[in-house]
């Protein structure tokens, strides 16, 4: 279990950070996911751990979004009075868009260091819609197959493929806009 955590914890932290954009919250999410895995699935075979951990991690991130939404309803009573997102059939994760960032409006530097490219990629990932980022990270970074990613995301395999494709195109477009060609 220790070796497994050592292998996945940094990627898990980054995933959580892309999602919540707060390093303290991201670390808390990773710790919660680790605790849940040890509490509930410590007896499971090692081959099952990656999938279980990813599912727990994604659920913990989703719980964070839900808590944030509830908190927002209390802290911004006006928005709740007008019922901006009162439709129960709408999945907020499907439509949640992040705000544009001023960094992308600035012209890119002529010579970007590797760390700067990474920073841009990470920023571009944060700007992706939640489901696209989730699909991209699960499929390409965690190297899960489409079926496993679909199970974790709670959607069809076709949706995962669509989200992945859109994510890659969006990332490429954003990076090209900054003059970066991978």
């Amino acid at each position, binding site marked *: 279990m*220790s070796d497994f955590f050592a292998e996945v914890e940094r990627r898990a932290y980054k995933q959580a950070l892309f999602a919540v954009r707060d390093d303290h919250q991201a670390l808390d999410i990773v710790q919660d996911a680790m605790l849940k895995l*040890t509490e509930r699935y410590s007896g499971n075979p090692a081959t099952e751990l990656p999938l279980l951990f990813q599912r727990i991690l994604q659920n913990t991130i989703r719980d964070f979004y839900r808590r944030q939404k509830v908190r927002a309803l209390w802290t911004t009573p006006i928005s709740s009075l007008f019922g901006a997102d009162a439709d129960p059939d709408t999945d907020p994760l499907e439509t949640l868009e992040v705000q544009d960032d001023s960094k992308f409006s600035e012209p890119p530097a002529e010579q970007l260091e590797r760390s700067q490219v990474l920073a841009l990629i990470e920023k571009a990932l944060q700007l992706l819609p939640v489901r696209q980022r989730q699909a991209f990270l699960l499929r390409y970074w965690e190297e899960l197959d489409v079926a496993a990613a679909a199970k974790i995301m709670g959607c069809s395999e076709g949706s995962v493929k669509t989200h992945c494709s859109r994510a890659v195109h969006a990332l490429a477009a954003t990076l090209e806009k900054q003059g970066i060609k991978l």
Partner: protein
Amino acid sequence: MNQPEHELARKLVQHLDDGVGRLEPGVRGRLLAARNTALSHYREKPQSVRGLAWASATAGRRGEYRFLDPRHLVVGTAIVLAVVGVVWWQSNGNPASELAEIDSHLLSDELPVNAYLDKGFDSWLKRSSR
């Protein structure tokens, strides 16, 4: 986009992997602390229920010992209680057994004093002696 999708994805992931390798020491330290917390929690669990360690370990092997499944334990306990209740009722509370006991005393002429104090029994005795 000119490049194939998966090729571009692979290059993006390479950059992300580089980033993971260059995490700040503070973050790495906190992740290590989080890992240790989770693992210590995992190790403490069996100690806190040491008395039930054998039972839980055995119950965990459901395939081998199905009767130790909590649901089966509840059903088993209910059956045992029901059997004990029936036995107790048969031996103590059953009116038929009381009558059988009185009959046997009557036949063996060993009636208790209380029987002679019972008015109904006295009248029955007089009627039967005529």
